């Protein structure tokens, strides 16, 4: 078991009333899963993904990740946990505009305090693997959307995470680019990486092994 959510709820107060963003979510993920979360806008998909990614907190329930109770961990400890095991891929890529492709890839390694020569080797591997060696000195604005997302995935992967969280990774791409990205996810999954994606596209869910449907903050 990679992670488990028990009775997770999250709410906000609006006009004196509790509005549930997530309600009583029970959810578990095994290593090697490829899960798609689906649902209409506002159903809580991204919130759920952020909670899993430890970027966001919750109000009720329990969350354990690799047998650790996330909700009991201190901020620093939690940061170490996700730094080590989790990689993020975003719909709008979120690359740093001021850094080149190479430097964008290098950034997470810096925060993990990995030595210079090892960093170089890892970056070179990634550039190689995604066939973007020729682009290593370009800035994000000089790349197409598909290429930017490739860099985004490469960056998420560079620290060899166990889990990749992807929030509509193909949302900003055309269908051909989207397919390529999904193929890469599929391949990563075959290599043992656990993937959770949020998606609107039925076609994308086909790459996954399990679908979770959300509606108004609950799993249906």
């Amino acid at each position, binding site marked *: 078991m990679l992670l488990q959510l028990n009775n997770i709820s999250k709410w906000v107060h609006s006009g004196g009333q509790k509005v549930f963003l997530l309600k009583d979510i029970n959810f578990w993920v095994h290593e090697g899963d490829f899960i798609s979360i689906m649902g209409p806008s506002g159903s809580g998909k991204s919130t759920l993904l*952020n909670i899993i*990614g430890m*970027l*966001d907190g919750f109000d009720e329930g329990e969350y354990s990740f690799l047998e650790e109770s996330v909700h009991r961990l201190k901020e*620093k400890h939690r*940061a170490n946990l*996700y*730094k080590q095991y989790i990689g*993020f891929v*975003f719909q709008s890529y*979120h*690359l*740093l*505009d*001021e*850094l080149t492709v190479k*430097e964008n890839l*290098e*950034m*997470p390694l*810096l*925060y*993990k305090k990995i030595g210079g020569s090892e960093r170089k080797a890892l970056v070179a591997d990634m550039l190689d693997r995604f066939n973007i060696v020729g682009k290593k000195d370009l800035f994000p604005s000089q790349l197409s959307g598909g290429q930017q997302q490739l860099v985004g995935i490469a*960056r998420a992967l560079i*620290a060899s995470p166990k889990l990749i969280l992807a929030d509509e990774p193909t949302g900003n791409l055309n269908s051909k680019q989207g397919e390529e990205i999904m193929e890469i996810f599929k391949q990563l999954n075959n290599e043992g990486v656990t993937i959770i994606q949020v998606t609107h596209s039925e076609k994308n869910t086909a790459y996954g092994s399990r679908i979770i449907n959300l509606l108004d903050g609950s799993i249906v």
Partner: protein
Amino acid sequence: MYTLYFKIAVRYLLKHRLYSFINILGLAIGVTSFILIMLYVNHERSYDKFAGSEHVYRVYMDFLKGETFLPGDAQTYNLSGPELKKEFPEILDFTRFFHMEEATIVYDEKIFEESKGKMADPSYFEMFGQKLLKGDLNTALVEPNSIVLTRSVAEKIFGNDNPIGKTLSVFWGDNHPLKVTGVMDDITKNTHNKINYLISFSSINSWRQFKNEKEPNWSFQNYYTYIKIDQKADIDALHKKIIESDIDGDIDERHNIEPVEEIHLRSNKPYEIEANGSITRVKFLTTIAFIILILSWLNYINLSTTKSLERAKEIGIRKVAGAQKKQLILQSLLESIILNLLAISFAIVLAIILLPLYNEFTGKELTFGFYTLKSILPILGVILFGMILAGVYPAILLSSYNPTKALKGKIRTSSQGLNLRKGLIITQFMATIVLLIGAIIVTKQLNFLQEQPIGADLSTMVTLKGEVLNKQNDSILRKQFKTLEAELEKLPIVLEASLAQTYPGDSYDNLPSFTGLMYPDGTEDERIPYFNYTVQPDYFKLMDMKFLAGKTFLPTSKGRSNEVVVNEEFIRVIGITEPNAAVNQTIQFFGNEWKISGVVKDYHHFGLKSPVVPMIFLHGLRRDNLLVKLNPDIVSTGGYRDMIRQLESKWTTFFPQSTFDYIFLDKKFQAQYDEDIKFGNAFRIFTALAILIAALGLFGLTSYTCIQRKKEIGIRKVNGASIFKILKLLNIDFLKWIGIAFVLAIPIAWYVMSSWLENFALKTSLSWWVFVLAGVMALGITLLTVTWQSFMAASSNPVDALRDE
């Protein structure tokens, strides 16, 4: 990792050029102003610091006024030094100076006008830590009629020849042949006691001018006395003993001492060697320097916190990639350090470029030497410290963003951050308005001073001066001057001419004072110093001084008499209320009886900073100044140059072997305000710079606000808001903040400026319109700064703004 931080910082700065430019320029202006002002301030504070200076004190005289002693004279008796040393063993030594402002030196038929000569005791070298380049320190000033020259004077007179043992002539009243016994280094500029050459003090024994002072006595306060005090001595106790002692046996005055290091900034007594600096001015400038520096930091904080909103996404990505708060703070700090170092470097270059201009402006010779480098090191320390401080807040703010919100672009100004920025802007405006009010009041006061009637008309007046080198008997010379006066009056360009000892605005040198006067009613007054100078009967008409009662002296064939004219203040002091009642009364001083022939209206002899003093005009013939009133009609058509040439040719026909010099009286009188005018200029310039910094900040802030509110503006416009409505929306906050700043600034400016005005005997009023004007100016500057950008934002097509979504 640091190289990456560095790289991203540089790229960021390059990408956001306008932002970087505004930030760096603002900081650089602030730092440049700070450096320049502090160079000046350091220079002013560096006066009279030499090895052992902390043990050297100047002796001065206090006079009893009413029940209290007040500083009365920077000069002492020639007995003061020797007697004090005898009386108090703590006093190790004394040095007396007799100051000669101008003299003519002749050597080998070459003529040199040299200023600032002194007669000095041999102890001078030891006390003031001065070395001799040539000659013997111990004997150079011992023999009468010895002279020690500074290096530059020696080179000017003797070129490469060795001056030691040569004889030159110093014309000071008479021709005095003096033997050169030494050459010393040039005296540093930062001393109140500037010296170009030294004559042995023992020379007074043989000079005719000192015939009454050969034996040291308690009669003439013409000497500056400095004492060196044993470093083990209790200075407070000694000070007490000195002021309580009555060594000259005169209960109406006492000797007092002050540290030599404090003279330049804190002493402003009658008969100072030179017009000293002012500690108020130094404090004011220091305050302005810090205000400008702090303004530029506030600006920086303001801009970078505003700008940091835009960087929220970057922070979010970094946090998601595993960055810790500490690392983010470090990065942000590194960026601010890079930016600030750029600004400092820029500022130093700017300061070096501007220094010559600044020197011309302040009348100082400030340099960026090793010494100044050392002295500005603490300044740079202050700057760096402030910069780091200014970087910390944005850094902490930036690093504390919640990553999910940051990534979604949901970070908006928190109310706390908004309050802080509001506070910063209000503080900036407040400081700016205070400076504006200050600048207006300083300008107003200076104009006020210059427009004040001084009680005498100095326009188109010159005094002719010069040294007659082949003179015989002094009384013959005086007659020649009298004839010259008459000859000059025949020239069509000359309205009138008259010989006088001194004139309003001249230095203290020619204006003696005495105590010891018997009133007409027999009251003996030993307390009040009476200033007096010798003039001819036509002096008052020449100067356009008005008589309240009586008239000028009756002309006599000898050109002198026992008649005197006094001023209004004089009769007030001796207790006569009605000017007419004073006429023909007899007063006694100098052991003689004098008849008051007239009372003139008060006039300002020392300029308008000092109060009017009791003045006595004596009737006599002195040739110190040949005052000439030029015909203003001819001046306005022909100008001065030709007129001066005519005067000079008359002068040279009378005195073929002589020097010729002339001074315009009104310019000389105005020169008393030089320092104040410079201060006023400095105030205005640095105020303008402060405003520029504030405006840069506003500019940056508005441009940012407009970008941030682009969508809001678009939505409002789509829903029918007019451009004017949008402008109002964008600008209303600034107007509110200015209002608050204005209200806060008024009491501060009021308090500070009233205390500045206390320095003047005559002060302008703190009129209400000054404050309103400053407020309106601040408002105008703000609107100018923000409106352009707001207008651009308000008039843009809303579709563009909304399409981004």
